[in-house]
């Protein structure tokens, strides 16, 4: 296949296809992932090509999906399960937190659970309640899980390959409102580490860190700021557990300022940890407190309000301005 321009959702589809082809132990499980190809068509065509035994339409029960995936992993399989929407992961939260995350430690390393939990997440698609949430902090706080989110098609492809290859459980958050965004994917490339942050636009005045759906907003903000003569370094964090603090630190030591953006509520969102730890690491370099832009302490609002709720260009630039004003 090699390099090809494709949408983020197609890249995930291609990645799943590669995994199914390469490793007979890989399974796809979830609600409507088979014949329908998922409500976002991310698994389109996979059941047709790999059969109902490998691409499995499950009963409507998320705890059951994750719980049986754990059992399948214990038997040597590598299940990739889909949770249909962010807000529907909570029935499975117990299995994820008390079993999936802890069984490796419980067994003193004897048991490995290479389970990937794919969750389309975030807002901006005009959906009803429970379809637009960003619960990543609720997973990143839990030891035993790894949590990642790609922001573009290439990362979507490669990070999923790496997540499936990992012997640890990985929560793989898919920025659903970027499903249709296209970019180059080189399936023959040698990918960088799964948990490394990446500078996607260099700059000197301030570091703007984002991940998943907000990377695009951050890049747009940096472009807008550039027109006003501000040089913003944009970082795609890519991984929320672990967070690549070394890369952030190197950037902040140069720029002296950090703004973190995510869709999830600010209060106890991943930005809080980043702010706390970066302040510790860069106390004498910071010219301003680390500022955070994110969701409010409210349920995700009705969709007619989401443009106000979601951090957009203006709110990011506002934070950038405030940080630069120190």
């Amino acid at each position: 296949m090699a390099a090809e321009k494709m949408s983020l959702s197609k890249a995930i589809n291609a990645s799943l296809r590669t995994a199914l082809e390469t490793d007979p132990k890989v399974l796809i499980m979830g609600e409507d992932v088979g014949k329908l190809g998922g409500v976002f068509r991310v698994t389109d065509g996979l059941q047709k090509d790999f059969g109902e035994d490998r691409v499995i339409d499950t009963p409507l029960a998320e705890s059951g999906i994750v719980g049986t995936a754990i059992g399948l992993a214990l038997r040597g399989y590598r299940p990739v399960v889909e949770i249909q929407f962010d807000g529907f992961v909570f029935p499975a939260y117990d299995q994820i937190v008390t079993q999936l995350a802890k069984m490796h430690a419980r067994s003193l390393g004897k048991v490995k659970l290479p389970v990937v939990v794919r969750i389309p997440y975030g807002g901006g698609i005009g959906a009803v309640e429970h379809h637009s949430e960003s619960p990543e902090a609720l997973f990143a706080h839990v030891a035993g899980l790894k949590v990642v989110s790609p922001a573009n098609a290439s990362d979507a492809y490669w990070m999923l390959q790496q997540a499936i290859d990992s012997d640890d459980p990985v929560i793989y958050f898919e920025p659903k409102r970027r499903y249709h965004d296209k970019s180059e994917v080189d399936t023959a490339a040698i990918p960088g580490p799964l948990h490394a942050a990446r500078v996607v636009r260099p700059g000197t005045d301030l570091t703007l860190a984002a991940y998943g759906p907000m990377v695009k907003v951050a890049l747009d903000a940096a472009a807008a700021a550039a027109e006003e003569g501000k040089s913003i370094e944009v970082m795609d964090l890519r991984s929320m557990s672990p967070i690549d603090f070394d890369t952030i630190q190197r950037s902040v030591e140069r720029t002296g300022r950090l703004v973190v953006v995510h869709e999830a509520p600010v209060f106890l969102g991943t930005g809080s940890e980043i702010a706390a730890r970066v302040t510790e690491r860069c106390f004498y370099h910071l010219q301003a407190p680390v500022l955070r832009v994110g969701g409010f302490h409210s349920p995700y609002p009705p969709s007619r309000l989401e443009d106000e709720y979601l951090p957009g260009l203006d709110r990011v630039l506002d934070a950038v301005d405030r940080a630069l004003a120190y």
Partner: protein
Amino acid sequence: MTVESTAARKPRRSGAKRSTTTRDTKKQPAGQTELVQLLTPEGERVEHPEYAIDPTPEELRGLYRDMVLTRRFDAEATTLQRQGELGLWASLLGQEAAQIGSGRALNDADYVFPTYREHGVAWCRGVDPTNLLGMFRGVNHGGWDPNSNNFHLYTIVIGSQTLHATGYAMGVAKDGADAAVLAYFGDGASSQGDVAESFTFSAVYNAPVVFFCQNNQWAISEPTEKQTRVPLYQRAQGFGFPGVRVDGNDVLACLAVTKAALERARTGQGPMLIEAFTYRMGAHTTSDDPTRYRSPEERELWETKDPILRLRTLLTREGLADDAYFAELERESDALAKRVRDAVRAMPDPEDMAMFEHIYADGHALVDEERAQFAEYQASFVTAEEGI
């Protein structure tokens, strides 16, 4: 507009006589299942020893009217979605009998916990149809006061409401009230742990709750076989209460069975499960494309069992309604559709600051802080613009 509304028009002509035996027995292993039916697809009344019912002509016309208006409202909502007035719509097309039959079985003091598709039940409860559209338009997450009509808000997380219904019923029992609770869920929902837990709690506490499962054969793209290998009504027995399967396209059977179950519950005999065997004629929601996973033949087959048509046949044959009646109902349907259409189009977007309201009943310092910051942030634009 009559029964032949937009969404349901095309295949009805395929005739009412097609035999459905083979198909049905596929879903219902022989001998295992008895389907309560009081009105056949051909519009014939049949007797049932346990579930007798003798509605007056007035009542029959009422049920017919409810179904027709509900279908018309539903079709209008689908249209409004296509026109961009709604973000999404979950159509009840095909399930009118299950909803009107069960909904009209309720007493005022009873309480209902719906899923997101019980527009017909909402109608029976007197909820203004327009109010149902707020969440689908994206202006709110639920636009009515549940206590005004004893009709809880729609619940989207599958199965959750069955536990709320059970708890509510436990409260009804504590109060010694002469009331019961009706909890709706789907065939897909039957797999959720919460539904099983609601069966356990209701049985252990003998709570006055009736579980009404609309088995519309599909959970999005998954047929009922992906949720169970035996008929769903049988699930109840292992929890210690009765289950019954009713023809979900037969409004009389749904009414009779639900009435009996609610009365059972009100008189301290505990929970009961009703499986209404029906069919989702439309897409799962307007976002769905059912052609990817089911055959047109299946839908055509179910067309022959249409819940509205069979009652119309009865009304006509028995001379209980004449052309004038149907014409008047068509006018009423059109008026309803227009009222809803106008109301939706006039429905304003919420104020930005509404984001910060009703998160807590007693207030919360962080919400106050964020509200103030956001107001200040917004004011900064006004100032900036004014500055220009």
